[in-house]
């Protein structure tokens, strides 16, 4: 059973058709890229899978089981982690609180926040993933954009049990930071996660993805193995112009 299988997903916002009959399977240890022009519906699709939006029509299956999420936390408790385009982090809090946001560890018997343990686990995780930050106790706003995105991905890595969705995780990053984030994505893949990543960047798609699926104005134009397609073919699928 594949971690994620979508069939016939549609989403209408009033009169606007944001997604029309979208189908996709993502396997364990596979990175699938989702590409398309601005407004094609990529973010909407991510939000449907992560429970932020409910599909107008269609089926979402996780490991074969049909699911209908009420909200994002419902999806999270079913093992779907998301790295959002606009960082879903609280930047006045320490790194470890961000890692455990909404799932804070508590100490028996009084249920006090276990800050020491959260900091310890966070430090271990960032060390494992080779994310270079001064300390897990650093305040997030003191970190660079790349470090913050790395924290968002580390969080997804820590909690994801089957599926990680990423919406343009490197859109705001420089070259070195992007490389670091791509390395993290490949580590996630190596750990057997299914990864669906929205990307604007064709080179990136070829570097990290196994397959790529293309959206144009809400319609799914096609899905290709990265090894069997070309930059030109993808561009013409995205734009609808033959090259």
């Amino acid at each position, binding site marked *: 059973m594949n971690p994620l299988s979508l069939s016939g997903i549609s989403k209408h916002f009033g009169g606007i058709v944001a997604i029309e009959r979208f189908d996709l399977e993502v396997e364990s240890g596979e990175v699938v890229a989702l590409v398309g022009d601005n407004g094609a519906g990529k973010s909407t699709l991510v939000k449907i899978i992560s429970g932020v939006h409910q599909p107008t029509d269609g089926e979402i299956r996780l490991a074969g089981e049909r699911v209908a999420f009420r909200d994002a936390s419902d999806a999270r408790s079913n093992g779907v982690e998301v790295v959002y385009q606009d960082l879903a982090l609280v930047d006045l809090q320490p790194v470890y609180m961000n890692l455990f946001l909404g799932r804070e560890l508590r100490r028996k018997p009084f249920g006090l926040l276990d800050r020491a343990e959260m900091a310890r686990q966070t430090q271990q995780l960032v060390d494992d993933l080779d*994310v270079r930050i001064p300390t897990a106790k650093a305040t997030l706003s003191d970190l660079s954009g790349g470090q913050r995105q790395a924290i968002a991905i580390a969080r997804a890595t820590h909690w994801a049990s089957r599926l990680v969705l990423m919406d343009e995780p490197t859109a705001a990053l420089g070259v070195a930071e992007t490389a670091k984030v791509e390395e993290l994505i490949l580590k996630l893949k190596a750990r057997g996660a299914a990864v669906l990543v929205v990307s604007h960047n064709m080179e990136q798609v070829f570097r990290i993805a196994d397959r790529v699926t293309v959206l144009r104005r809400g319609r799914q134009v096609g899905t290709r193995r990265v090894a069997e397609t070309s930059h030109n073919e993808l561009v013409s699928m995205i734009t609808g112009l033959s090259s």
Partner: protein
Amino acid sequence: MTIAPTKAPAEKGVHLVVRSWRNYVVYVGFVVVFLYFAATQGANFLSGTTLVNIVTQATPITIMAVGTVFVLSLGEIDLSIGSTVALAALTAAVTLQVAGAWWIAALAGLAVGAVVGLVNGVFVTLVRLPSFLVTLATMGLVAGLAQQITNLQSVPVTDEAFGWIFGGGTLLGVPILIWWSAVAAAIGWHVLRQRRFGAHVLAVGNNASAARVSGIKVTRVRIAVFMLSGMTAALAGLLYAGRLAGATYTLGTTDLMSVLAAVIVGGTALTGGRASMIGAVVGSLFMSMINYGLLLAGLTVAQQEIVRGVIILIAVSLSLRGKKGS
């Protein structure tokens, strides 16, 4: 591969120094004003009675400051606390005459605060109005109710137990009002720093959509904080009724300014996500000390108000200046 920090280290150092300096304004201010009064008033000011009075006078402000720290941490504001003080105090005083038991009266007063907070919270979250407008409206509404329920009449409080618990009692040689302040501050600090709830309040105030997608029940947190704020105001009302042995609709009317000043000077950000419970308590003692010092200095009530306004303006600008951009 390593990700280099984008900020130059020197710039960041300056940033940190400026930030921490702002957090200590209240402690520095406290010491400076303390030394000033000590120098100018001498033994008068440094007597044990004066110092105890400063803390006991501050008690209602301290307790409301605890609630307000949570409200500002959310990035919201509660302007209705001052009038809730009066309505809760009158409700308790009237209940005491009818029911006769101090604890029924106390529960009735606290219930008033909880209901006002619930109304505020529901309008802010479910109707999605700015808390500034909602609590401005309930401030007027509650003040009107306070004038209405006894027709502007004061209500005496003669119950001994009530007077001891919320006013003149002493426990282990320490005035009960100081116990109230200490316990409220300790519970406030504990909930803010050591409980999930406090972490969630700060997260919602910092980035509500991040909190929501992280599974935090944002609406529930907001409503709970407004109820907490209403209940701290109600408790302040009970403490006024106990100390003054009676309640009247004018109680608490000037407290809003003192509470906000105490909390902001104490280092809690108006924009949400950043809070200091200890700072707020010291801020409240700071405000009380100014009041007391000005009184000892023999200023008229009008002069006291002017000087207090100026001091608040200076202290608040020192602690808020430049905070917007960071």
